[in-house]
């Protein structure tokens, strides 16, 4: 399988997983899907690293599988389990409608292909993932789902970086990975506090500060 073919099918798989997450309301399922998506991205990075003979990219791929594919979802699953949150009923739009809306938005991106000069066709899936992450963040109520939305968005950016002929320096990739993980840890701790203080982790209840 050639580099381009692999990259295309890999991106397709990750976007489909992202789209699947839009229709899911069960928190553990969406965390598992996020882990799978990250693992696919990590495998893609490893494979590309082997094809291009860039050992550092292989290391980045391994780190992504270990940290974003396993550690981050496992930690969030633990948080979700402890806080006993199973479902995120989300905002008033029904999940099937959200799903069709997201599908429509992805189709529009593909058909209209905005910013043709700056974004080649191969980077459209990552733009789609950015959008899916934002949709997750907008349509969910629970703190944990907000974190998941942010992580999907971040996966979209990772997909963009490995799609370039030369990937970012390993110091930067690993530094970003560490920052993201630290952010997940911190957000998880805050979720515990929110649940203690507000008796749920519904972030729409956070509305004391305004004006």
């Amino acid at each position, binding site marked *: 399988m050639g580099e381009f073919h692999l990259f295309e099918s890999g991106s397709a798989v990750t976007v489909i997983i992202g789209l699947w997450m839009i229709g899911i309301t069960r928190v553990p399922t969406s965390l598992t899907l996020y882990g799978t998506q990250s693992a696919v991205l990590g495998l893609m990075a490893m494979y590309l690293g082997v094809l291009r003979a860039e050992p550092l990219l292989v290391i980045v791929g391994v780190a992504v599988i270990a940290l974003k594919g396993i550690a981050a979802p496992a930690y969030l699953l633990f948080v979700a389990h402890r806080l006993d949150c199973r479902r995120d009923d989300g905002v008033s739009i029904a999940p099937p409608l959200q799903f069709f809306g997201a599908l429509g938005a992805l189709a529009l991106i593909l058909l209209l292909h905005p*910013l043709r*000069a*700056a*974004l080649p066709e191969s980077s459209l899936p990552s733009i789609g993932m*950015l959008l899916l992450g934002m949709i997750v*963040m907008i349509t969910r109520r629970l*703190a944990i789902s*907000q974190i998941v939305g*942010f992580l999907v*968005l*971040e996966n*979209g*950016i990772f997909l*963009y*970086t490995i799609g*370039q*002929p*030369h990937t*970012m*320096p390993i*110091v*930067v990739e690993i*530094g*970003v990975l*560490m*920052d993201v993980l*630290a*952010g997940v840890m*911190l*957000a998880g701790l*805050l979720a515990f*506090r*929110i649940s203690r*203080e*507000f008796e749920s982790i519904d*972030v729409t209840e*956070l*509305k*004391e*500060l305004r*004006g």
Partner: protein
Amino acid sequence: MTAIVALLPAPLLIAALALFATRLRVVPVLAAILMGIQCAAAAWAWFPILGTPRRQIVEGIGIDSHGALFVLLTTIVVAAAFVHAVAFFEREKLSEHAPSHRQIGQFYFFASLFLIAMYVVILSDNLGYMWIGMEATTLLSAPLVYFHRSSRSLEATWKYVLICSVGIAFGFFGTAVLYAASQQSGALHVGSLSLAALTTHARQLPPGMVRLGFVFLLLGYGTKAGLFPLHNWLPDAHSEAPAPASAILSGSLLNCALVALWRISDLARAAGQQQVVRATLLPMAVLTVITAALFLLRQRDIKRLLAYSSMENVGIMATAIGLGSWSGFALQAVNHSFCKVAVFLLAGNLLQQCGTKNIRDLRGLLTAQPGRTLLLMLGIAAVAGTPPFGSFLAEWRILSFAADKHMPWVVAGLVLSLAMAFIALAMQSLDMALGNKTIKDPTNVRTRFAVSLVLVPVILLLGSLALGVLLPSSVLALLGGGR
């Protein structure tokens, strides 16, 4: 190299002290002394660098006049906050929600690492390192916002972490786009994130990708700077944090984000894309000032009032960045940091004395605490850009620069909203100082005029006064002069 090394020991030592000696009562005093030494070290190592051209010392770290100024400013702001914090935490222990030693230890641990992250942002020559430093500042300052452990501070922290992280994620996409752009230019074909290399070969980068990268970086670092419409988290985080943390957030973290904006605007200009800077950053900046002025009018919470005033100043500085006026930006940054730190620290004292942040409940403050109230009013006047304080000169400089560039809408928008902000701040502070007395028991509020609680603010306000009165031209030359 020594310049970089000189910055590290004191913050690392404070972090270690705070981590391992949580039970020690002297941590705040030791931290203040160490930050004093840090100030001296920074002045010794970085003052000579002011006014020198950019040079790279290690891969990814660049030293220049611009960086030196903000290293010095950040060090001074954090040192001022730490010195004031000694008296602040002593007083805080007498309040209802007295913080534990562990909480105070955590404050010092995170604040000193936060300082190092800010140095990374200011000094990095590599867009990737700059991003990592910027995200680290969010994560390390979040515990400072959550210091009081109340439901309000929890909400502020959650908003702060989430909005800033998402914003910054867009910034990383912008970074990735510029990296991809560099691979399409002849000279940098393996890709580069170095600001120096990108600027040198800026003309060879594909213009469409530079524009796209710039816009996403603007979204990212603009969120961190609190530019409209990405500012929602700012008044919450800055008002719920304890006074020394509010001072650091307003007085130095905003500057870091603005320095990052300056660097990327410079890059976009070098690539011949000044048009996109003017079309995106400038309107955002002017709208930030206008929005902040509108919120200042109806604000009833003294700390939120100060937070919106920070937002107003961010708008002014971002205007200077959009216009490409380094001297206007630098002068405004120095003055704003000095005055805003002073005012936040003074407001913190008030809050401790009176137990309320509501301006209505603080009416008649002048009779209860004449000295401190006068100081606070002077500080607010300085923040609002009243002559003879330095910010007046800075704002004047930015306005005349905009007029020179034939941008009537920038001038009109700024003048109108600056006037509105001035009136709002004057009304609010007069209401608080004079007003019909509502402080129930003034004898309770009237306490010893402790020198330790006003020393730092007085010095900072005198500094801003000096910048406004003493030879601004020589100051400008030191700031890097020129534009």
